[in-house]
C-alpha cells in the first residue's frame, strides 16, 4: 500500500544541512500494524509527515496504493489527506471552540458531505470510541484520554486506509494511554493500517512490525508473527 523509494529529506539550518531522512526505502502492506521507534531527532516524525503528505521529500518517490503521489498539487494532496489518511497527534489538536461532535465532523465538512449523512456518521464514530455521551462537550471538558479518542474518531470518520499516530500516548497517563492504544488496535483489527511513532517500548512492542530509526535511516525492521500479548 505504502511504497517509499530512496526518500531523502534535508533541512537547511543556517548554512548547515540536516539529513532528517537519509535514503529511506520502505514498503508497508495494507492493514499492517507498524511501530516506529528510535532516539529523539532520528527522523520518526519527518517520516510520518512524508507518509501523511504533510511534507514533501527532497528526493525519492512515494507511491500510495500504486499511485505516485510525490509531486501531486496542493489540492490533490489535500484530497488524499482527506480521504485516505487519518492523523492522530500527541497534542490531540482538537479545535477548542468546537465540541466533540463538531470536531469529528470537520473532515466531512471539508469533503462537502451532506449534513444528514454527517450526523449519522459522526454518531457512529463517537459510539465506536465510547463517547456518545460526550458528543456535546468541549475539549476542555474532556480528559486527555477522551480527547485523544475524539481525535481518533475524527481520524476514522472518512474511512481512511491508514492511520498515522505520532506519539498518541505521549501526553497521557498509563491507563488512558492503554485505552487509546486498544482503541487504535480495534481499528487495525477492522482492516485499517496503523503506523504508530512512540518512545514507549511497551507500546512499540505490541506492533506486528517494529521499525527502529537512527540518524535518518531505518536501522532495524522486526517482523513479529505472533499475536501481541
Amino acid at each position, binding site marked *: 500500500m505504502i511504497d517509499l523509494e530512496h526518500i531523502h529529506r534535508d533541512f537547511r539550518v543556517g548554512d548547515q544541512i540536516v539529513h532528517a531522512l537519509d535514503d529511506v526505502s520502505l514498503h508497508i502492506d495494507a492493514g499492517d500494524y507498524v511501530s516506529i521507534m528510535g532516539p529523539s531527532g532520528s527522523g520518526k*516524525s519527518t517520516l510520518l*509527515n512524508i507518509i*501523511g503528505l*504533510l*511534507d514533501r521529500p527532497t528526493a525519492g518517490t512515494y507511491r500510495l496504493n500504486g499511485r505516485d503521489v510525490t509531486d501531486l498539487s*496542493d*489540492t490533490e494532496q*489535500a*484530497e488524499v*489527506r*482527506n*480521504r485516505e489518511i487519518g*492523523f492522530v*497527534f500527541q*497534542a490531540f*489538536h482538537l*479545535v*477548542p*471552540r*468546537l465540541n466533540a461532535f463538531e470536531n469529528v465532523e*470537520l*473532515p466531512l*465538512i*471539508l*469533503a*462537502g458531505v451532506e449534513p444528514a449523512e454527517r450526523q449519522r456518521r459522526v454518531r457512529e464514530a463517537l459510539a465506536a470510541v465510547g463517547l456518545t455521551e460526550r458528543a456535546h462537550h468541549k475539549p476542555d471538558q474532556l480528559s486527555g484520554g477522551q480527547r485523544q479518542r475524539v481525535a481518533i474518531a*475524527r481520524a476514522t470518520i*472518512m474511512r481512511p486506509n491508514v492511520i498515522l499516530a505520532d506519539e498518541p500516548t505521549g501526553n497521557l497517563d498509563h491507563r488512558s494511554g492503554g485505552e487509546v492504544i486498544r482503541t487504535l488496535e480495534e481499528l487495525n483489527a477492522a482492516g485499517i493500517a496503523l503506523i504508530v511513532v512512540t518512545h514507549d517500548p511497551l507500546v512499540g512492542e505490541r506492533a506486528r512490525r517494529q521499525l527502529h530509526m537512527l540518524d535518518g535511516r531505518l536501522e532495524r525492521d522486526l517482523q513479529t508473527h505472533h499475536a501481541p500479548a
Partner: protein
Amino acid sequence: MHLHSRDIGHFAWGALRSYPGRTFLMLLAMAIGVAAVIVLTALGEGARRYVVDEFSALGTNLVIVIPGRSETGGLNPSTLMGETPRDLTIADARALTRSVNVRRVAPLNVGQAEVSWGGRSREVVIVGATHEYLAIRHWKLGQGRFLPAAKWEQALPVAVIGSKIRRELFGPRRALGQWLRIGDRRYRVIGILASRGRSIGVDVEDLVIIPVASALQLFNTPSLFRILVEARSREAIAPVKRFIVDTLQRRHQGVKDVTVITQDAVLATFDRILGALTYAVGGIAAISLAVAGILIMNVMLVAVSQRTAEIGLLKALGATRRTISVLILAEAILLSGLGAVGGLLLGLAGNVVIRRILPVLPAQTPLWALLSALMVAIVTGLLFSLLPARRAAALDPVLALSRR
C-alpha cells in the same frame, strides 16, 4: 471537495464568537465608520435641501428686478439700497405683464413704520404689494381676505397683518375690521397671514402688507423697491429676463438701469456648493472606513497567528489553500458586513435624532451615500483581509502543528 457555503458561514461565525471582545470592537470600528458616512452626508444633504426649500418658498420661477445697474450682476450695497438714477415705477411693473411668458407681476415697496392700535404701538416692516403678491410668495391667509385685485395705482387704506402683529397689538380681541394707524395714516385690517412658513429674510408673522400705492404715499417715494416677476415655467425664465431688460431699457430712454436676478442662478450656485460639501464630508467619513479596514487586517493577522495550530490541523484534515483562504475571508466579510449593517442602523437612528433636534434640517442620507458606505465597508474588509488569508493559506502544516 466543495464546502457548503452554509458550513463556511457557520465556521466563520463560530470563530468570531470565540473572541467576543475583539469581534465586538471590530464591529464597533466598522459601524462607527459607516454611521459617520451616513450621518455626515445626511447633514450635508439636509443643508442643501434646506437652502433649496427656502429658495422655493421665495416663489418658483421668480425673476427679481432691482433698480440700479450692478456691474457684477450680483448684489452690491447701492443696489440693495435701491439708489438709482431713474425710478422704477408702478407703470414699469404694469409694462412687464405684457408677455405670454409672464404669469404674475408684483411691484413691491418696503419700509419701516410705527404701527399702533388702542394705545399699543410697534416699529414694523411694511410691505407695499399687490393682490398677486400672496400667490407669488406661496403664502397662505389665516383669516379674512388679501389685498383686493384693484388697480395698482389705487391707494386703498387696507392692511393685511402677520400673526405676531395681531397678537401683540390686539391680544385676544378681534383684529379684522379694526382701523390701524401706520405712520400718520389709518388702514383697516382686512386679513391676517397664516403663520406657517418662513422665507429668507422675511418673517411672515412680523410684517404688515398694504397696497403698493398706499406704501408709496406713506413713505413719500416715487420708486419701487423691487418688482417680482413670476415666469410661466422654468424654461420661460431666460426669455422673461430678456423681455424685462428690453422693456425697461425702452421705457427708460435706452438706459440699462436695472438689475435682473433669477433665483434660479443663486439656487444653482448654492446647490453646487452644498452638493460638493456633501461629497467632501462623505469622503472624509469614508476615511474612517479605511481605518476600520486596517484594523480588521491587524486583527485578522493576529487571529491567523493565534490559530496557527487550527489552520495546520484543517490542512491535515484535507483543507486546500483555497479553502483556508475562503474561511479567513468569510470571517472578514462577515465581520465587515455585520459592522456595516450595525453602522447603517446606528446612522439612520442618528438621522432621526438630528431631525428631532433640528426640524428645519431635513437630514436624510442620499441613497448613493448609503450604498457606497456599505460597499466601501465590505470591500475594505475584504481587501484588508486578503493578506491575512494568504498568510494563513501559505502556512506549513508541519510547522503549524508542531508549534505548541
